[in-house]
């Protein structure tokens, strides 16, 4: 057979690839519309130095849902989370490929104001980390950063509202001047949530927020998240499968730097597509 007929010209090859890519993007866009996608992760790859910690990760986080990241330690779920507010930028040797869009905007675009991104994408850490200052000031600090001209009264209002939303107001309202470090662990964690809420984010990310809390405090945080999801998009990294099952709408299962399974929480837990997911979910490892 004639070779020249078999092999298309390079230009045609490129055009075909472009078309295929366009097609793929169209499908994603349609799906995003349908699912009310807020965060769209496309072909994410993350390296620390020469070490690939995430590869080939593609999924989407719908708005006003709780999406849980599960998987054994070191699977890359926290790294994925920290890509969304660019906290990884600070880590030496970090580099990434692929694209993450928040509300259609590429968050790794060089024109993006990282400070503003982090206001929009709040984060709560594994260990409560209130600042060594008063409860009031813990919340006021970041509010003033983003709204330097706010009046005293307005600020007090924002602080109160944030504490109310975080279900902490009734416990601390009489003594907002008290040091935040004097609060209990569960209270501190709710203060950290309040602090994130006060700057009016769209997304709240929580990296194992209950890992150092007792069961009662954990239950209170879970209740709180189920209330907050009406107004915010929530992403939670958790080791606690029961917790993911209780509160999440979608679940992403990571293993060794890959996203092995993603979908509706009930489906992932009860009828996983992959063997590894099934084994992890029934507690065979991790």
């Amino acid at each position, binding site marked *: 057979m004639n070779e020249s007929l078999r092999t298309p010209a390079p230009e045609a090859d490129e055009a075909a690839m472009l078309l295929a890519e366009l097609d793929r993007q169209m499908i994603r866009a349609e799906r995003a519309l349908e699912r009310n996608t807020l965060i769209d992760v496309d072909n994410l790859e993350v390296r620390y130095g020469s070490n690939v910690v995430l590869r080939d990760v593609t999924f989407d986080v719908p708005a006003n849902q709780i999406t849980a990241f599960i998987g054994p330690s070191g699977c890359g779920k926290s790294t994925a989370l920290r890509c969304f507010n660019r906290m990884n930028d600070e880590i030496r040797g970090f580099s990434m490929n692929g694209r993450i869009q928040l509300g259609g905007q590429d968050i790794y675009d060089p024109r993006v104001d990282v400070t503003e991104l982090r206001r929009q994408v709040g984060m709560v850490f594994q260990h409560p980390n209130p600042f060594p200052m008063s409860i009031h000031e813990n919340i006021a*600090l970041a509010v003033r950063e983003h709204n330097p001209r706010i009046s005293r009264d307005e600020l007090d209002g924002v602080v109160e509202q944030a504490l109310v939303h975080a279900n902490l107001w009734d416990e601390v309202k009489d003594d907002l001047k008290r040091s935040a470090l004097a609060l209990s662990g569960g209270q501190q964690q709710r203060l950290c949530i309040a602090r994130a809420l006060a700057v009016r984010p769209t997304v709240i990310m929580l990296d194992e927020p209950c890992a150092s809390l007792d069961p009662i405090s954990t239950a209170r945080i879970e209740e709180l998240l189920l209330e907050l999801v009406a107004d915010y998009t929530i992403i939670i990294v958790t080791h606690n499968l029961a917790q993911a099952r209780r509160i999440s709408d979608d679940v992403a299962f990571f293993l060794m730097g890959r996203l092995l399974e993603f979908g509706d929480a009930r489906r992932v837990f009860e009828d996983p597509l992959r063997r590894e997911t099934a084994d992890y979910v029934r507690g065979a490892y991790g």
Partner: protein
Amino acid sequence: MRVSPIKGHARLSRWIGPASAWIAAAVVAAVCFFIVGHIVREGYAHVDWKFLTTDPDPSPAESTGGGVRIPIVGTTFLVLLSTLLTFPIALGAAVYLAEYMDERWAVTKAIRLGLEVLAGVPSVVFGMFGVAMFSHGVFTFMSSSGAEGSDVAFGRSFLVAATVMAIHVLPFVIKVMEEAIRSVPLSYRQGAAALGVTKWRAIRRIVLPAAAPGIATGVILGMGLAAGDTAIVWLTLGGTMNMAVDNWWALDQIVNVLRGTGSTLTTFIYFSSPAGEGNAPELAYGGAMVLILLVITLNAAATLIGRARRQTR
């Protein structure tokens, strides 16, 4: 199951470490208490209100005359001035080293090497350097001019001494402050960054307040070093027991005082003691006791500040 008893040599080796540490600590404490005790015993009788409130009277015959009023004032002036110069530079350098510098940069290595060398230079070298440097005509504003009509500065004054002293204590103060800033938990910085708080504001509003006790310790360490140094004072404050200006307390004399010579407790001791240039050991002991009390007070203040800060957290 029976737990076997510990063998003889194992028992001994278990004791050697703690015992030698204890002995070393005891030796240090004993030496320290001996020196302080000796000075207090020799100086106690001479320290009274009159001693504290009269000026030195450096006549060789009258070895029992005079007190330490001017030296106390001089020490205070010198310590305050050098702290004023040291504090902003040390804090800025410490923030830069702890928060912004990359250890791999050549400039970081150069700064670290510079600080280490600076810390290793004996203060007498700084003193010599200070006189040589500040005798230059352009520095006439810092000390009275030399001889009539010459374009050389005298090179000895409170301003010169405080500047040289600041250079001398800077590496130590920077080190303490940098450690204090570094010891602030990373989680505060991360928490602030995750809220979209800029790094500079996080440093100013969270990191520095949290590091305040350590920073205060650095300031007080610098004060103690400045109060205790002799060579720099001896060379750059003028070899005198009194001040160039008689009515140094007058506000309109402040420039003349700062540009003039003076003395501190350390030079008072040096010029009184037979071990130095004087002939009045009891005065030297008295001055030493006052100086030691001053330094102990400074250290106690540092401890108290640290404790008070911890309690408010």
